[in-house]
Structure formats: C-alpha cells, structure tokens
C-alpha cells in the first residue's frame, strides 16, 4: 500500500472551519478551535481561507530535534505521532518546524496531527472536498489533469460522450 497524505484545494475551501472544530473535538471532546491540529487562516478582504496542517514530512525536523524521541513514525499511516508520555513540553519542535505544524496549548502540552489513525476527521467533515486524504502521488496530478483538459477542450467537445475527470471546474 502506498502512503497517503492530506492535501488541500484552496479554490474549494469555504472557510467554514469545520475541520478545525472537528479535529479539536475528536481529540479533546470539546468545541475549541485553539486545540485543533488544523488551523484555518482567513483573509476576508480577498475572500480566501487557508487551512494549515502538519505535513508529516519524510525528513522531519521536529522528530530529529525532540530530546526524548517523543515523536515517532507510525508504520500504518506514516504519520509522525507525538507520544504524550514522553513529551517534556520543551517546545523545540515548534521552533524547527518550517510550517507551524505543531501547536502548544496553554498548559504547554503539545498537539500534533496524527492523521486520526488513517481516517482524518478534518477530511470527513470537509463539505466541499477541499481537504482530501490521498495517495501521495495524487497530490499534483489533479492540477495536471485540469490543465490537460483545458488544452484538450476543443477536441473533447467534438465527442460529447467524453467525460472530464479533473475536480477543477
């Protein structure tokens, strides 16, 4: 089995923050976006919302810097999972992560995306499909498909039976 990752299509994100809310809820059983692993930054002026999340890097600075080896690679999902019992709350991981993918709570406890053991809640509750959990090879291919379809449109139109597959409208 290949490796699956989270991917986002910004054109489909409505900025509803259900991903934030459900992420926090499933991990902490409370409604509190500030405990979410997912963070949506909204730029209202230009109508854009950007969901940010841990990318579970292959070469992970957070894992390397952790003095107690609290961040470990989960075999099943490939996620870098934070072992709470080992974490000493030094925050070093937040300093080296280039993407702001880990977050400290008010009591210094760390929260980090664990891909919900292969069934991410953020994806489950993303209404428009902006967030997806896909094979790593899939991440770029949809954009390529969309461009290809655009270039091929004059030819595709000649056969109405031709169905398009890209998710871009």
């Amino acid at each position, binding site marked *: 089995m290949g490796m699956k990752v989270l991917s986002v299509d910004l054109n489909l994100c409505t900025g509803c923050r259900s991903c934030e809310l459900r992420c926090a809820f499933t991990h902490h059983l409370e409604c509190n976006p500030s405990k979410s692993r997912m963070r949506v930054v909204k730029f209202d002026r230009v109508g854009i919302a950007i969901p940010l999340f841990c990318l579970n890097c292959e070469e992970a600075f957070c894992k390397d810097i952790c003095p107690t080896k609290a961040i470990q690679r989960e075999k099943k999902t490939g996620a870098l999972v934070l072992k709470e019992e080992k974490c000493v709350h030094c925050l070093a991981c937040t300093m080296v992560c280039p993407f702001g993918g880990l977050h400290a709570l008010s009591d210094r406890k760390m929260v980090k995306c664990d891909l919900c053991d292969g069934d991410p809640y953020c994806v489950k509750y993303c209404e*428009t499909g902006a967030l997806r959990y896909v094979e790593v090879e899939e991440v770029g291919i949809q954009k390529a498909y969309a461009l290809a379809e655009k270039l091929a449109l004059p030819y595709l139109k000649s056969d109405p039976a031709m169905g398009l597959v890209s998710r871009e409208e």
Partner: protein
Amino acid sequence: MSAYTGKMLKVDLDREEVIQVSTPLDLAEKYLGGAGLGAYFLYQLVPPEIKADAPGNAVILSAGPLTGTIMPCSGRISATTLSPVTGIFTDSNSGGDFGPELKFAGYDMVIITGQASRPTYLWIDGEKPELRDGAHLTDKTTWEADELLRKELGDWGIKTALVGPAAQKGVLYGSLVINKYRAFGKTGIATVLAQKNLLGIAVRGRKGVSLHDPASFEAQCDKILTSIKSSEGYSSYSKLGTYGVADLYQATGRMPWKNHQEAEIPKDLYKNICVDNFINNYKVRDVACFNCPIHCSHWFEVKEGRYGGEKGEKPELVSVMAFSALLGCSDLGAVCYYQNECNRYGIDMMECGNTLAMAFEAYQRGLITTKDTDGIPLEWGNLDSLEKIFEKIVHFEGFGKVLGLGVKRAAQKIGKGADQLAIEVKGYGMSLVEIRNAPHWGLAFATASRGGDHLKALPSIVGNHPKMFKELFGDQPPAEITSLMEIKGKGKLVAWFENYSAVVDALGICKFAYKVGWIHPEDLAVALSLATGIHYDLQKLLECGERICNIQKAFNARLGLTRKDDTVPQRFLKEPISSGPKKGEHLGAILPIMLDEYYEARGWNKQTGLPTRSTLERLGLKEVADDLEKTGHLSK
C-alpha cells in the same frame, strides 16, 4: 450547565468599566440564550420612558448555547436593543465567526449600557476585556477599521463587529458589520452603539465550549448534518444561497418592481438579474459562515461594466431585490457594488433600498422635485442619480439627512401623502417580499415584533412531510397549512413558526439550515438536551420560543402598541396586485381574518391584540403581567 460558558460581560460606558458576572443559568433554561436572553434583559433594563438614543438604552450581544459547537451552522449571535429607527423592540442576528469567537473567549453575552465620553472600542481577549481609545476608528469605513484593528492587535484570528461612518454621522439604520461581509443588519444596532460612542468590538478567544454528553451530542450532530444535506433544497442552497429562489419569486409575482408598483421585473430586464447570469458571470466560489456545510454565500467578481473590478461576498436575494427590482434597476454589477458599499459604510441594505424606493416613487408622482433632492433627479433605474443620492445618505448630508432616517420617518418629512408610499410595518421597511401573492407571509410581516420582517416567523415548510405535519399541526390537512391559496390555518401556522424561529435564534444556530423539513424540530430538542444536560422535548422547547415571543410582545405593548400596529402597508391592503397567482387581489379583507386566528392561537386579546394574564402566567411571566396591568397594557 454545559454548552454555556457561564460568564458574561457588563460594559458600563458611563464609568468606562467592564466587569465579569455569571450567566444566569436559571434564566437560560427558560429563555435558552441568544435572542431569548436578549429579549429578557432588554425588558428588564430598558423601561418605556427610555428613548433609543438615551444612554440608558442597552445593547445586548448574546450567543446561544449551541453557538460555537459542532452542531452544523452554529455561527449565529443576536443583538437586542430598543431600535432608533422604530422606537420599539428589536433584535438582529448575524452569522460569520463573531459569535463563536465570543464563546471561545469565555463569554455567553455582552450587555452594553451608558455612553462613553470619547470614541471607544471594546477588546475582549480572555481574562482581561477592556475599553480602549477608538479615536482612530472615527469616520473609517468598517473595512478600514477592520484592518486597523487587526494590525493593532496583531492577530489574523480576531473577529470584529464595527460601526461604520454612516451610523457615526447620524443615519438611523446603521448596521453593525462583522468582519466586512456579515452584519447585524436590521433596525439600527450600530446607530445605538454610535450614540454610545462605542465604535467597535474585537474579540479573540482560546477557550472551549464543553458539552454534557459529547459522544452522543456528536452522533446527534451527525444525524442532523445528514438530514440537512439530504434535504431537497440543499443542492440549490449550497450553490446559490437565497439567490437561488430569485427565478421562483419572479415567476410567482413576488418581486417588488419600482417600490411594489408591479410584482415582476420586466422580462427583457430580468435576464440581467436571473440566477443563471449570476452563476455564469459573477460567482467565483462558495463561502461559508462558521461550521456551516451549506456555504450559502459566494465570492463574486464584477468583470465588466460600470462596476467592473468590484469584488466581495454574497449578494442575497434581498440585496438583489433592494438594489434592482425595488429601484427599477437591472444591473447586477450595481447590486454587487452596493452590497459592498452598504457593508463599508455600515447601513442596512434593505432599509436603504426601501427608503430610496419611497423617494423615487414620490419623485415619480411629483411629490418631490429636484429642488428637494439637492438637484438629483430620482428616476427609476438611473445609476448616476443612485450614486449621488447614496453618497448623500451615507454622509448624512443634504437630502440624505431625510433619507437617512428610514422609510417611515423620511416619508413623514416629505409629507404630501408620501407615507402612503412607505412600504413599512411598525416603522421599519419590509424585507421586500410581495405579500399579496403569499398571504401568510403578509400575516407574518404584520405580527413581527421588530417591524417589517420576514425572519421572525419565516413560515416555510420545505417538501412534503405528512407524518411531521400530523405531529406539528394535529389533524389539520397539510395542503391547507402550506397552500398559498388557503387562508384558514395561517394564524396558527405563523404563531407556531414565530415560536420555532425564536428557538432557533435563541440557540445560536442558523434559521436557513434548521428549516422545518430540512430537519425535524424534535432533533433540536435532543441535541440541546445532550449539550446542556437539561432535558428538553419539542414541547418544552417551543414553550421557550413562545415565552420569548411573549416578552417581545410585552415590551412593545408596554410602549403602547396594539392590534392597529399589527398591519401591513396600505398598498397591500388596497391596491390589487397586477400579476401572479393572486392577480387582482389584495389583503384588505383577509388580513383581519388571519389576525383573529393568530391572536386566538397566541392566547391574546382579539380586539386589542394585547397579551392576556392567563397566557403570560401559563408561561411563567406573572411579573410581566403585573407590570403590564399597572401601566394599562394588559388585556382586560
């Protein structure tokens, strides 16, 4: 009690003081929260001798128990006050992220009284909410102010509610704008805050909302989410929002062309306004309020024409009606532009449209001339004139000082019978729906506690649900209840829907998602029980709604309102409609019949429209009954 944060803020602007107190949870069980607790506190805090512009008036911002939770569409919050436009009860409700953020900051409500000595804003951040100098917000558009505060506070996550320059200068129907594109739109909430010298509120929170039984609540939310998404209206609503019914309104004679002189937009012009034109040429993508799977808003871009380059959010059906049909215009780019302008300057788009339409018709009929209008010819569809007169309104100068007062007062100022052209109820412009082709909507407008409004009842049942009908309305045949043609049953229907809408507004969720038929109302009771740990069934929930409606009613009765105020504009009572299913008819004869049935369903006095002691006491409002009796406003 779970779902509530248990704390609220009292802001005393006279003393420049912000104090934290406990949310009265015993009252929360009776009034739920949101619009419910808002109405309760307004009744307690603002006695009839207080005028809207007095420091003694209060503004109550109140989230509901479900605001900010994983319940779908949980982004709503209410603002309740004595309206400066109508001089009676009002509340206004907004979506977006502001309500949830207030809960995350740890507060259910904010009660604002007094008057600051200088421009001020309120910064709510966790433990130390404070009043800050707001001089730099003076005369700034809500968009500029939003950016200023974001820079000042240094956080992309802050949510703002801002008073625009129009309300600061004196326009009575100022709307309190939430993060640029949402608003407490109706009845002048921002004007009251401007009079209090409180120019905005910024909030940021990092706390959570806890639930009584999280696992079961989650399962119930999932059930409701599935119900919403599988309802028959979902696919249209999720693509188009309220705009989606524009074609239906046009086809069924419910468009307010030229201030309701006609009930449809001329066909050759409608092609510019129709749903397809919006999708193909303006809509860019979907945008949602907090935790909403429906995403009924849209990002738009005006690509060409007079307003080419304008970008923003929405428009709603009512925006389209306000700045196209009502004013005899058919430029969708103009609608988009004015949607943004109303948000930037902070005014209610509907009241602005209604007031302009009254003035345009007064001009058409020669009641006013360019001598009265600062030289601006108020001709239907004239975009040059519209731009000039709009400027006058938002800067509250010249003839704009008249039109900035709202449709009723402006018509009174114009005189010469212009009041006959004012499409208003209880002093507030109607939400543009042509009611002669939908009589029960007419009844709902007549009885709405905040004046000409479609949202206090929103009496629509979606789809065919025979079983639900039987549960909700007993043996009354569904066709009788839902048919536009039948008069019978409508009083009962509107009373029921007012109660239900009050519940939804009190819980902090969105009325559009919780339409009867999209969900079963009983599901709400189950969700609330699981969230709070207090048992509610539908009957208890609807009784809370009825209590809320009764205290709103009592507030207005105490100000002297009676049955004569529960009416609709003369145009709908006297002039036959020119098209649609009820062509040739008006509401003159049938409104009184529907009203009789409505008061009966309410347990109020049919002759006077006043509340009765027995009804108030049944709802646990004995003190309110005593209060009304003392002042002579209880049914004898």
